[in-house]
């Protein structure tokens, strides 16, 4: 394990899961984990185990739904997909996240420090 990988914070993981499902459609847990890792350019290390409680939470909240199916290489797997509520939640969270990062960016960029 390379030491400079950042751990995924709780909360952002949910957003990444939702975004992943939006981009790729129905996907199993392992696929989601791999996708998040790849998208982050291997900068993030997902402890795959933490993914499952997060998936469960999203399902309990009604943002994703699950169904058993068969994977590309013929393995039985549980597939998750975005629900309507999940789509809305994704838009909302993405918006909030952009706002947050925009604000933080202003604070952090040295030239525009407010007086």
């Amino acid at each position, binding site marked *: 394990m390379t030491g400079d990988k950042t751990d995924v914070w709780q909360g952002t993981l949910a957003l990444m899961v939702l975004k992943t499902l939006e981009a790729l459609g129905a996907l199993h847990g392992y696929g989601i984990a791999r996708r998040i890792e790849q998208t982050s350019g291997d900068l993030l290390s997902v*402890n795959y185990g933490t993914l499952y*409680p997060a998936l469960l939470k999203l399902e309990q909240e009604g943002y994703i739904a699950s169904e058993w199916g068969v994977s590309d290489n013929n393995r039985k797997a549980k597939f998750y997909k975005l629900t309507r509520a999940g789509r809305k939640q994704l838009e909302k969270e993405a918006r909030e996240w952009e706002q947050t990062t925009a604000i933080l960016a202003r604070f952090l960029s040295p030239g525009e420090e407010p007086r």
Partner: protein
Amino acid sequence: MSALRAWFVRLGGLFGKEQQDRKLAEELESHVQMHIDDNLRAGMGPEEARRDALIKLGGIEQTKETYRDRRGLPWLESLLQDVRFGLRMLRKNPGFTAVAILTLALGIGANAAIYSVIDGALLNPIPFPHPDRIVDIHARWPQFQKAMLSYPNFLDIQRENATFESIAVWRTESFTRTGLGDPERLQGKMVSANFFSLLGIRPLLGRTFRAEEDQLGAAPVVLIGEGLWKRRFGADPEISGKSITLDGKDYTVIGVVPSDVHLLRFRGSFFDDVFLPVGQWDNGLLRDRRNSLGLRTVGRIKNGVTFLQAQAEMDRFGKSLAAAYPGVNDGLSVWIEPLKDDLVGNIRPSLLMLWGAVGFVLLIACANVANLLLARSSGRTQEFAIRAALGAGRARIVRQLLVESILLVLAGGAVGVGLASWGTRGLLSILPSALPAVARVGINWRVLLFALGVSAVAGILFGMVPALRFSKTNLQEALRESGRGNTGAHHRIQGALVAAEFGLALVLLIAAGLLIRSLEKVWAVNPGFDPENLLTFSVSFSPGIMSSPERTHAALHGVVDSVAAIPGVQAASVDLGVLPFEGDSETVFWPDEKPKPARTNELPLTLTYFVGADYFQTMRIPLLRGRAFTPADDLTASPVLVVDEDLANSIFPGEDPIGKRLHFGTGPSQEIVGVVGHVRQWGLGTDPKGAVHYQTYWSFKQLAGPLLPILASTTYVVVRSARSPASLVDPIRRGIHAIDGNAPLYDVRTMREIMAASLAERRFSMVLLGVFAAIALLLAAIGIYGVVSYLAAQRTHEIGIRMALGARPGDVLRMVLSQGGRMALVGIAVGLAASLALTRLMVTMLFGVSATDPVTFAGVVVFLLGVVLLACWIPARRATRVDPMVALRYE
């Protein structure tokens, strides 16, 4: 929203755990397999591929654990675990559980029972809509605080007021119903047309009165009560339009009034059977502004008008009516009182006292259960210590203890509510007359809520004790002492609880003792006549007989003669107007020597008894001076009068009253020919405030004019017999039916029964407080017995050593007894101090004993010490039988 949804899903997650676990295992398995496949494809060896997959997953078991926490509600799961464990613990100790639940059931049940009475009688006594706006409207005269308005005064106020939605009047009256079976005496009301709409009562059938029916000369109509409708008419749905005969007159039934609405019944009165419009009453006195004829006025204040505004308007009415009718309304003022206050006024202090008493009982019950739990929890110290050592947090163990307490108190509360519903029903059947008759007492949701609240308080009270105590124990010590971890602090808590129980029980016992002594004293009061073997009954003659004074007099004579002729009867007399403890007929008077005063309203009042020649002999009221009546005191003779000693002494101080004359409003003055002893008209206790005290006796044979049929419509007869009066009823009934076949005979009671009924309220408080004090005593005795036994058992080892070293059984006995005695003595000392402060609050309920009556106080203390001795004696005896060898080897 989504958080709520998640919560429900998680609640659902508590069920079907095994299948869910299996699904998760499958999902993780497929995850790992897919990972391994990828790794193999990337060129790893099978072993390495598998290892890498598991590492990246972060441990299957750990994942499952966090997943499970997320799936259900972990705190709820552990709570359910606690509940299951608690139930198991309670089942394992059935003796402990039963005693604790029963103790709590007594405490909570007593509270729920009293609260249900308070709820029905004090808090929600009026079953009508918006009861807070319904008020009684009273007149006030200079010499009379609470008087009634006359009909003309009522009509004026009704017509002109602006603050009331409506104002109605009612008066009780009884009627003789004839035709259709035996004649019967019916209780009824004469009401103004708006009476029912004011109270919000709808008829079951038909309609209520119209304004035009509430007039002289209108067609005679009647509403009948549900009771009569079912009893006499078989709940005939076609009753409207049929006719019934009351006092010889035919009335058309226009509707049926429900009886589940207790229509302003008052203590001891019956359900109303008939309702007539008061405006049809052709009694001339009704329309005379000087008479109130027992009219009660109720009003419903307009929405948005305050009580004070309504009172201010009544003040104005008082002044204007007084000014408009000088000589009649002089000094009149009008005041209003919430109907509720009027209904519950007398019973309130008793009920509040009883409420306090059951609070004490509950505290004692809690102390007892706390002690039980303490004793048990010290036996469990080791269990807790081991659980703590295995990683249970203190909070978790305290929660476990609280859960057990809550289970106990819930079970106790459930049993208690059962006891309460049974107990209230019993109470009401024994002592119904002590409560305002409108009270609807029963277990309703308010009572259940109250019981739940009480249980919660109780659970916290006794549950906290062992929980707090546990949180202070040193676990290492507890483990090392292997279960005998008893510290001095522990004994002190138990001792303090026992002391508190005895303090509380002492207060209750003293209060009950004071009430018992009061009742004893009241019962011993001389009523002014001899109540033994004295029978009274009422009779109402039919209208034909009362059509002329001669026929009425003849019938009254006939009744007395026929009763007096029955073997075993020593004397008999009629009594019109007032019977001791019953009825009320009064008038103003002034001595002949003084000029007639201008303002009759400031004159003294006297009760008027219209009696036969043998009345004093029958009642055994002592004749102090002069003579009693003779048969010669009739309409042809000059009017004579017998007065009571109080009137004689106050009006003619230091003079001989015989030969003096008294004036009564109209008519000639009457000569006093005799003075008799004073009779306690208003009950055996002290006279109520404003009650008329003076008493005058008139010869009924000198009575004629409009008053005679009114008075004779309820004729009391008093009968003195040598033997038990019960056997006289049948011959009396036969004799009266020979005189008037349509005359009902009713209210047959002995004087002793009437006197006992007059004390119903006192007895109600006394019986209940006595019961609560007994429960308190029982619980306290069980409490001290339990603690002393427990402590003695804990000291078995020590006692064994002492005995091995030469202590005699007497020493051991003394040691154990003194340990219990010390606790009780501290409690008794505190209880005495509390009693001295608290019994002062019940002064109004006492009679003939002071609130600090030394006899009661001393008696109760001695009694309580006896109980303590007995309760401690048993464990003390057991301790003396300890075999030193066994005790020492046991450890």
